């Protein structure tokens, strides 16, 4: 088993127009994402940016990387990366964004500015140096 070629054959030749069309589409989408970034949508900016990036990414993966024509296994392998990356991100953010649930004092570092700003004039250089004392 597993030695036969898939139905489209190992030598699917993508029409030239598909490549050029996808490439053109990617450039258009790039232009759109740049334009949108200059419009203030509040929290939606990042959503729009990521949605457009994902459309672009899908086009690259599906056509340039042939996932659209190839066996499903490759799509599964690739999407595993996204699944596990999401798990990693989500569970980590469950910690970092929810540290003040029970005791607000735990949510913030007591010295917000890093040590390198200690002797530097800056907008926020008044913070207490001897951080152990309280």
């Amino acid at each position, binding site marked *: 088993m597993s030695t036969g070629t898939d139905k489209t054959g190992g030598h699917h030749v993508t029409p030239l127009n598909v490549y*050029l069309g996808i490439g053109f589409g990617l450039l258009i989408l790039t232009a759109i994402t740049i334009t949108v*970034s200059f419009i203030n949508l509040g929290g939606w*900016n990042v959503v729009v940016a990521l949605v457009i*990036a994902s459309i672009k990414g899908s086009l690259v993966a599906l056509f340039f990387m042939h996932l659209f024509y190839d066996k499903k*296994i490759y799509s599964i392998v690739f999407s*595993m990366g996204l699944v596990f990356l999401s798990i990693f*991100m989500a569970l980590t*953010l469950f910690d970092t964004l929810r540290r003040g649930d029970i005791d607000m004092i735990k949510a913030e570092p007591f010295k917000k*500015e*890093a040590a390198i700003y200690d002797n530097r004039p800056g907008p926020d250089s008044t913070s207490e140096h001897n951080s152990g004392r309280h």
Partner: protein
Amino acid sequence: MDHSENRPAYLAHHFSNIAQQADAAKLGMWVFLLTEVLLFGGLFVAYSVFRAWNPEMFYNAHKYLNVTLGSINTVVLITSSVTMALSIRSMQLGKRQQTLAFLWSTLLLACVFLVIKYFEYSHKIHLGQLPGKYYTFTGVQGTNPHIFFSIYFAMTGLHGVHVLAGMFVIIWMIIKTSRNMFSPEYYTPLEMTGLYWHLVDLIWIYLFPLFYLIG
């Protein structure tokens, strides 16, 4: 061993036919790309954590990135992806000279990308917008802007290393192609190079809005 007499030289002894070998290589390559996604994934997680903590600082710091250069680089990489795809298509059709031409243009575009990146980096280094404790710039409002630049340099740096590695592989492919080692029947290494190059492009597609276009 009952190997059939007409085994081509590029078919390794432990595979029974070319399709099996090509499928194995492709699966291996995709698994490798999966590891690349997770390698960058760690940095994406660090990015999300710190951006969620300091959204203002990220917004203020991103203004010091040059959107024009970033956009040009995006266009350059997308174009290089198209030329890479076309080089493989030409080999499928048996047009070796065309393949070479497209590979050379991909290589050239990769160079352009890195040169632009070099100018961006040197400008930041000049201003003191360096990662971590070498950060000396004072213009950015907000908490710990050096972390923005740490993550920026880590992510674009890792991406740049991948571009560089890709260039070496493309050079190798140019050599192999000009030595007539590929044919419409066998061009697996070329195909694998293409997959890798598109992934490098794909990662940049995410890096670009996340750093240059924080709205």
